[in-house]
């Protein structure tokens, strides 16, 4: 176990190094000059060159990357080009909001997805099953921007049940979490449905039924714990999907997370922030996958870590 963990952590570090190199390189070759974004339109040629020199952007790529890495290993993500604030501070101030949103989103997608999946499996072949599966198909394909505005309009503006965007109370969390949750739930309901159908066909379920257990006990006590296994592993992967989704959802709902930070930084070519957010997201995805793999054997003893 310890050896496995060590090996996985080393691989994770290598992945992060690779991510940092690729992102840094892409930003370097991007046909957009961060210095011109900082200098603005009235700056003289001298001002532009001065800023370039002060930021070290006149140096060759490998020197710039080396310099960035050297800071990184000391935990220094650098300072934002435009805001001059420490990137670590900017991310730290926004990370709790993003984590809270993810937690809310995962809860929402599990609640919706698993319920839909179980019901559809039990009512297999009925109109209800088809309706639920059609719904999941629609939610998976619906653009987040549209879903978020729709929810906002109906539940916040028209019905007034929730605040119109913002952050701070549990009520603020509901709509953004639901937006992400609805979109993620489609995968879960399909996954849960097929997994449940497989399990319901298994011999031990027939045995349980034959023993005269109630339908509820069969489903919740015997079928669910087995059917849910492949679903658990998906949560880790979900973190990656959410990292993309939060950019849109945070912007619409005015949720002060790192997705919003990333979006603003990309528009302003603020490279230190883009790098910082990318690395933090990469860490989240790598850790999410690692966690899913580590948890799996505890849920399903058939899985062994090697």
């Amino acid at each position, binding site marked *: 176990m310890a050896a496995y963990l060590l090996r996985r952590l080393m691989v994770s570090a290598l992945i992060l190094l690779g991510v940092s190199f690729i992102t840094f390189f892409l930003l370097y070759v991007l046909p957009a000059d961060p210095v011109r974004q900082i200098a603005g339109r009235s700056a003289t040629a001298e001002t*532009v060159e001065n800023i370039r*020199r002060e930021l070290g952007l006149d140096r060759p790529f490998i020197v710039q990357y080396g310099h960035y890495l050297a800071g990184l290993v000391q935990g220094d993500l650098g300072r934002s080009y435009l805001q001059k604030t420490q990137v670590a501070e900017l991310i730290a101030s926004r990370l709790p909001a993003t984590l809270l949103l993810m937690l809310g989103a995962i809860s929402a997608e599990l609640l919706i997805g698993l319920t839909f999946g179980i019901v559809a499996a039990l009512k297999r072949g009925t109109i209800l099953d088809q309706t639920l599966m059609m719904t999941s198909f629609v939610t998976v394909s619906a653009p987040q921007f549209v879903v978020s505005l729709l929810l906002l309009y109906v539940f916040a503006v028209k019905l007034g049940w929730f605040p119109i965007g913002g952050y701070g109370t549990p009520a603020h969390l509901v709509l953004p979490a639901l937006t992400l949750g609805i979109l993620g739930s489609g995968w879960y309901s399909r996954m849960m449905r097929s997994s449940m159908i497989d399990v319901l066909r298994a011999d031990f379920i027939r045995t349980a039924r034959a023993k005269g257990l109630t339908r509820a006990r069969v489903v919740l006590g015997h079928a669910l714990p087995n059917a849910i296994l492949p679903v658990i592993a998906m949560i880790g992967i979900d973190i990656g999907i959410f990292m993309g989704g939060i950019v849109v959802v945070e912007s619409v709902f005015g949720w002060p997370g790192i997705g919003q930070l990333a979006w603003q930084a990309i528009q302003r070519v603020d490279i230190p922030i883009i790098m910082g957010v990318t690395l933090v997201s990469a860490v989240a995805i790598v850790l999410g996958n690692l966690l899913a793999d580590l948890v799996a054997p505890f849920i399903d003893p058939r899985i062994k870590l090697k």
Partner: protein
Amino acid sequence: MKKLLVSTALTLALGLPALAQDYTPDPNAKAGGSIVITYKDDVATLDPAIGYDWQNWSMIKSLFDGLMDYVPGTTTLRPGLAESYEISADGLTYTFKLRAGVKFHNGREMTAEDVKYSLDRVTNPATQSPGAGFFGSIAGFDAAGDGGLSGVEVVDPLTVKITLSRPDATFLHVMALNFASVVPKEAVDESGADFGKTPVGTGAYKLAEWTLGQRLVFAKNADYWRAGVPYLDQIIFEVGQEPVVALLRLQNGEVDVPGDGIPPAKFTEVMGDPAQAERVVVGGQLHTGYITLNVTTPPFDKVEVRRAVNMAINKDRIVQIINGRAVPATQPLPPSMPGYTEGYAGYAYDVDGAKKLLADAGLADGFETELYVMNTDPNPRIAQAIQQDLAAIGITASIQSLAQANVIEAGGAGTAPMIWSGGMAWIADFPDPSNFYGPILGCAGAGEGGWNWSKYCNEGLDAKAVEADSTYDPALAADRMKMWSDVYMGVMEDAPWVPVFNEERYTMKSPRMGGEDALYVDPVSIPVNYDYVWVKE
């Protein structure tokens, strides 16, 4: 809906430092209350040496003061932290007498040393100020560094003397820029690079709270040196709010002014509803949207071709695309700018005339080119209209719709034959015609990376521009404006640009907002002049 024209241009044209009139405070104004302003993006910085976007520009104006300022709602200069000033006969020495008893937010009194420190700081390359170049006329600018500017001298605690290396008719405007704000050295030293997050100035408000990514709170500066203002006790800036959401919240009574304006998709709906439209204030702004024609790229090196393109563009239709939020432009300067040439009609829309000019240039069969455009609405739609207009005279333009930074890069590098300036168009830093020339039409901006995307360089006009800006004597201000008018007429003759429209500003406010309309379309404070607006209840 009321329509205002910012026409203090006239006062400026007649006498340069038009200081005679000042602001008459609103007799109905009430003190107290709090308002909510929303923005989509977080505020980048509140450091006056660094901040250079239209969002933080007006916020910085309320936290800091410079030696000069503008009469609220106008483009008329008035003294700020300077009580008075004298200009030497040769126009090279400005002696500013400071107001006594002005206090920074940290309680210390502001002195001439602070003025010198602030100007030294903004021009020091280590500060990386985007505005450093504005101070190029101060003696010692080229050697500016840790030693400071030799041209700025403290005479006594309340007198500062600034010596210029060349006469500069725009110098008082430069001293009214945010970049010339007075900052206390001890606060900058203490905060270092974080001064932009912990600003300390002499302004009407002080920063009370900044929760990154969520909100900023400005609290009234009770010790403010201008009597009677500000009226509001506090201003809450909520950031991270999509413009569409901000509008919904305004309709719900939660927001007072959406800082990003009325979203284009909602514009017709808002203006079609009388109850909402009456709370929209419309005003001119110092803005021109234009198409650049790269004079170094054939066939745009031929003036006939550039004039033909000027005649081919149907500006009225383009104004319709943006719901009529602009007026068609005839020349580079917007109508409310001093130096604007009245009565000049520009190149009239004339498809047949344009075809004939192309034929004269030996391009009767047209040609293929590329039109670069920023990829946010409505710019791609405007580009399509331009594309159709060009097709009518036989020019096939393919549209390159890119992110703003990529268009700026292509423009600076000179690889774009045509650029539609939308989203990056010129809005004046200060209300003087010289500000529309140097970086975007002059030879200085035509180099690699400059904002003169036409790469147009007419040395004769450049010389004339220098002559105009050396005409510092206020008595000759009208002559100076004539010179500038001639410069822009010369530009139109060479036609490196197609001036398309001058955008108007639409500021929406909640029913509880008070103060005259001019404060809501203040030419230097977007969206509103925070120091002078008030709430009714």
